[in-house]
């Protein structure tokens, strides 16, 4: 049943992402609105799948790379829907729904592994660690989306694209501000995620750092964002350089999935 629901959710998610993308690109508000409604339906279904996974026996909600990507995709979709409320951010529908759909689709493709004995033993720590780390990556996904928008808009401005093209995106200032705030939240939550991960390892009497992908990539992502935030504060690094670093940081963070059970 869970898989069936997930399949319906991913079909809705992909359809909503396409409708939102096309609506934004072709300046058809009706398509964007329809896309948002379909995406909202997909979000509810994905939440239901996550709840069912959590409730199924002794498994924790995030027990494998697939589960992680599913939870992250669902979270990013939720953030997209929240950012789309009110005045909304034009252009964001070009990036977030598509990337979140890709995450959920990858979650569907990757096999789900049963929870290990150790994970069950430290269920509380594992829940806290995965929840915080996933939330952090969700916020960093928004920063990633904003970086993409920044690069597209910067290029459009530099190459004197038509005003119609420029109007499809928020002002550079807005993109930068939203991206920066998302980065701040993402970095803080990622720091907390790494700290809870270390605490869990200590509880299990395991070495704190094992040179696995699951440990190396979050640390690398953390280092990139730490450098970026420090450079931004001390030297005012922003614009394209900041956008490229944010994209690289997010890409490193998402590679964490390589170290997860498959």
């Amino acid at each position, binding site marked *: 049943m869970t898989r069936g629901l997930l399949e319906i959710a991913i079909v809705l998610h992909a359809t909503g992402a396409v409708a939102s993308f096309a609506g934004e690109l072709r300046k058809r508000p009706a398509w964007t609105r329809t896309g948002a409604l379909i995406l909202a339906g997909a979000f509810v279904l994905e939440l239901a799948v996550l709840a069912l996974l959590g409730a199924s026996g002794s498994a924790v909600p995030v027990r494998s790379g697939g589960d992680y990507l599913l939870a992250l995709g669902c979270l990013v979709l939720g953030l997209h829907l929240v950012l789309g409320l009110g005045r909304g951010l034009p252009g964001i529908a070009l990036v977030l729904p598509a990337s979140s759909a890709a995450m959920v689709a990858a979650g569907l493709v990757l096999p789900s592994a049963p929870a290990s004995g150790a994970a069950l033993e430290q269920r509380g720590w594992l829940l806290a660690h995965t929840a915080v780390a996933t939330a952090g990556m969700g916020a960093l996904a928004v920063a990633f989306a904003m970086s993409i928008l920044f690069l597209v*808009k910067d290029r459009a*401005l*530099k190459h*004197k694209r*038509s*005003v*119609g093209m*420029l*109007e499809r995106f928020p*002002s*550079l*200032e*807005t993109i930068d*501000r939203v991206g920066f705030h998302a980065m701040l939240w993402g970095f803080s939550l990622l720091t907390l995620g790494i700290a809870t991960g270390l605490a869990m390892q200590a509880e299990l009497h395991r070495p704190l750092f094992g040179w696995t992908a699951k440990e190396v990539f979050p640390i690398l992502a953390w280092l990139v964002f730490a450098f970026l935030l420090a450079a*931004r504060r001390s*030297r*005012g*690094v*922003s*614009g*394209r*350089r*900041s956008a490229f670093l944010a994209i690289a940081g997010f890409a490193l963070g998402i590679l964490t999935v390589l170290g997860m059970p498959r």
Partner: protein
Amino acid sequence: MITLVGMNHRSAPLDLRERACFGDDELPGALSRLLAGPGIAEAMILATCNRVEILVRGDDPGSAAATVRSFLATERRIEPEILEGHVYVHEGSKAARHVFAVACGLDSMILGEPQILGQVKRAYEAARRCQATGPVLDRLLQHALAAAKRTRSATGISRHAVSIAFAAAKLARSLFDDLRGRRVLLLGAGKMTELAARHLVSQGVGSLTIANRTYARAQTLAEALSGSALTWDDVPQALERVDIVLTGTAAAAPVLTCETVRRALSARRGQPLLLVDIAVPRDVEPETNTLEGVYLYDVDDLQEIVDDGLGERRRAAEEARRLLEIEVVAFDRWRQVADLGPTIAALRERLHAVGREEIARFGRRLAPLGEAERAAVEELLRSVVQKILHTPTVTLKAAADRGEAARFAALYREIFGLDLTERDEGEGSGPQRLIRGGKDE
């Protein structure tokens, strides 16, 4: 019938439009003299720099137009033969369509310009204050103003840039959330830079600093624009603080080099900088656009935006005309139903009169009936008349919906032998009664 007599930037030269224009303080007197003219029931005068239009409701369209022409000639001391070649006259639906188009900016010199909506609104308010409008012009103007607002919003016609200054402000909004609080540096104190600066000031920019080779000219312009003046040598330092630079000097070589801007960037801490160069030859070295966070637009780039904007406005105007046509048809239907009022009322009056006559004729035979029975018979007769009236009335209104009100009304008058002039003016019904309730009462 609605009649519009007017002249605009296409039909009349500026000196004639100037002569025909009415000042705000002249409107009450002019409206009252216009209403005193033969057959003019309602009136409104719209006078802007590009048009003078007089809208009236008159009993007879031909005579209303002649009255307004003569009023305009007398009032503004313009020879009738000069006026003749420069005014246009629209009547009925055409007049209504013209009012809708004017309110939406579709008849403006700059297609879709937004100021005209406010000007029409003010002209209507002035006419209302003078009690010069009645139900028909009230309905027309309220409908036109609301429709123009809806149409402008639906088509976004005024969003597209049609001037260099507008394009510069639009670009600035692509970079910054809001122009309020933004710091603008003006290089050069020529006419073009002044115009563009005035537009930015009208958009609410925070501060304006002006630098010119001749400091005194910078000071003069700074005073005019409530800004501050700067010596030319201080420009590199100013570049570190401002958000927008607008340049338009007459220099033969670039006054702002890539190196000067590069040096300022380190102190800007990543803040984007918009350079708008409207000078020919250019004031800013083109390579400056390659610097990170610097966006340089020259006069050709701005002209492309203006051309795009004009094209977009033309496309939006097509859509706006289509939307307005729906509104014009709706107003026209209302007007036609209003025009049917006297015929419907006369028909009703005629049949009820027949009923009353028959009651009177049968008076003696009905005498033995008691008060209650007699009232019941009268009520029965009224009800029969009402039922008979129902279908002809509905048919007449349906004819109005099809735009055939006048033909059907004439037919009814002939079939039922209705003479509208015989009717008591106070007994009109439906929209027509509203019309009678206009300024005449």
